[in-house]
């Protein structure tokens, strides 16, 4: 097919596709048809224009490069840049720079309005001693409400959905737990609770490997051993998931004994040494 014919075909295809596109839109729209017709409309026009360059009989041309640097005759005289009255007054120059810098700092300071100082927010959640453990629906939970090898996402009563307080409850056979003795007291009938926020980058650790008794974070595959205090056994997380101290109240519902003993979520510079006052 000679070039003229090709160009004509391309442009006609383009025209028909554009008309078709309008028609499809008016008729109610169809995503695939819109995309394909738009593609043909654009592509036909584009192909036609590109093919047109075959008809243009302009050979390679040469253009000289002028030197980029200005020739010495045309260059500015340094004196033009620094007229009398400026270089000699170095004190004034220094004050000028100082004032400029101070002004820049002053103008930049409203940036601090963008957000509050973190304060103790990274060290505390909404869990407090005596607060009941509730599910997504707000209802309190008894230990045996969880089936064996069952998991449940829970919150402090009154703070359902709280991002920093989210806790993963897991029920395992009591004889399987290998916690430190003081942490063993924080479990009830094999129900153990850990912060659901991964200590690596903060994703909710929702994946429970029941046979292996591990929590696996779906984001970067940090794996935590539930039976041994959620210590990380694989992946980039370096801190264990903080354990929630659990107890039961008089009616047999799960409550917290207090807040998590360490900060939840990803580590930060003073996660071990900072205090939460």
């Amino acid at each position, binding site marked *: 097919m000679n070039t003229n014919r090709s160009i004509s075909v391309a442009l006609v295809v383009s025209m028909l596709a554009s008309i078709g596109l309008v028609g499809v839109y008016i008729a109610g729209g169809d995503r695939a048809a819109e995309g394909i017709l738009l593609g043909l409309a654009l592509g036909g026009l584009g192909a036609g224009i*590109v093919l047109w360059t075959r008809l243009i009989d302009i050979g390679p041309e040469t253009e000289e490069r002028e030197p980029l640097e200005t020739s010495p005759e045309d260059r500015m005289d340094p004196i033009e840049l620094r007229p009398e009255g400026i270089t000699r007054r170095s004190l004034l120059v220094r004050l000028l720079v100082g004032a400029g810098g101070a002004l820049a700092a002053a103008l930049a300071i409203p940036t601090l309005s963008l*957000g509050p*100082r973190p304060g103790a927010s990274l060290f505390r959640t909404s869990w407090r001693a005596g607060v009941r453990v509730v599910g997504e629906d707000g209802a309190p939970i008894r230990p045996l409400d969880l089936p064996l090898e069952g998991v449940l996402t829970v919150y402090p009563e009154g703070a359902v959905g709280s991002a920093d307080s989210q806790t993963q409850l897991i029920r395992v056979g009591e004889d399987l737990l290998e916690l430190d003795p003081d942490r063993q007291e924080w479990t009830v009938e094999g129900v153990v609770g850990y912060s659901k926020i991964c200590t690596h980058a903060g994703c909710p650790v929702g994946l429970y490997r029941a046979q292996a008794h591990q929590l696996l974070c779906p984001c970067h595959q940090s794996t935590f051993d539930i039976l041994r205090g959620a210590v990380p056994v694989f992946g980039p997380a370096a801190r264990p998931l903080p354990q929630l101290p659990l107890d039961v109240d008089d009616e047999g519902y799960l409550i917290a004994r207090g807040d998590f003993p360490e900060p939840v979520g990803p580590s930060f510079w003073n996660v071990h040494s900072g205090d939460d006052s």
Partner: protein
Amino acid sequence: MLGWLDRRLGADSWARSALRKVFPDHWSFLLGEIALFCFVILLATGVFLTLFYRPDAAPVVYEGPYEPLRGQDVSAAYESVLRLSFEVRAGLVMRQIHHWSALVFVAAIVVHMARVFFTGAFRRPREINWLVGMGLLLLALGMGFTGYSLPDDLLSGTGLRIAYSAVVAIPFLGPYVASLAFGGEFPTEGIISRLFVLHVMLFPGIIIGLIAAHLGILWRQKHTQFPGPGRTEQNVIGKPFWPVQLFKSTGLMLLTAAVIAVIGGTIQINPVWEYGPFVPTTVSAPAQPDWYMGWLEGAIRLFPAFEPTILGVTIPSTFIPGIVLPGFFITVLALWPFIEQRVTRDYAEHHLLDYPRDFPVRTGVGVAGIVFAVLLTLAGGNDVLALAFSIPVEAITWFFRIAVLVVPPLLGWLGYRIALELQATDFHPLRRRKGVVLRRNAEGGYDEV
């Protein structure tokens, strides 16, 4: 019409030089244009999307046609994206073209940048343009990240959480800077509207300015060219801007748009309704960012659980892969023209390009860098690879941990050797031999030209 403009702007004399301006005619010089045209597509479709999107994280109840979400509390932003996708005619195709175009935008920038790197086009006088290009690359990444976070869906919201955590990991300043950026402790309601401002106003404005600078500098300095018959450091040989290059560029713009339009209409991308609205208490798997953030994702996945505490200051395990690594990479890349100048002590002007084989060390280093980035990106999808090939994800992680340290130097060295080899044998795999030109010399013998 030119006369009309000339009588008002004196356009004729400018037009004469501009339209006759010569541009060398190599296919690899068009790669940057692909990126430029993707930006045009993003602007055009972006305006359309902006007219429907609500940058508001306040909860509303979804009452639209997508049944699995009906009755749920979602953010107004998420709801507006669903409405655009399901209830606005041509909405979904516009959204998909926009998102596909973003993926291709960054890919084209990377390919273009690789071409510039391997041919040494960043050398004097083009160091400024290299820096401008770096700025464009970073802003393109920023546009992508802010853009795909706007729908406030579960996947992109998790990405925001990870970004927040990486910032928090910065020693001393981290928690405060993160609070300033997000407006408080994660999650905040204000982040969506802030991302919107960045994505729709601040970043595009800067990008448009940088593109203007990028093209203006190119125009002023004239394009580089490959060495060849008749080509010197003092000239440019090619086709004139009008009509040849303008036709080719316009055609390429339309064809780029055509390809992305067809893909946008036929292949699903970012189905936010499947992920569901963002809630901070769950995440689905697999969880990855868009491809151009994959290298960071891979770095974060591969870095081991190394979190030392030095003099009371903890260095979280996200700090090195999430902050130090990209910082180092970007700095080296940005300063490359100056690093190379120092090392080679070559401060001369260069308008003739190198072929990659002409500077084997640069080629080797470039290959190593690219392989490193590619391996990190692939590692970012380790759980998808695990699922696809039924291999334990731990094995894949360990494979990549070793691979990213061993393979880049290996392939870099290989690239170096191949470049040397190609230099020695003068063999070009793609260039057709057109015969040799001989010239009679003064002694009566023949010289090759």
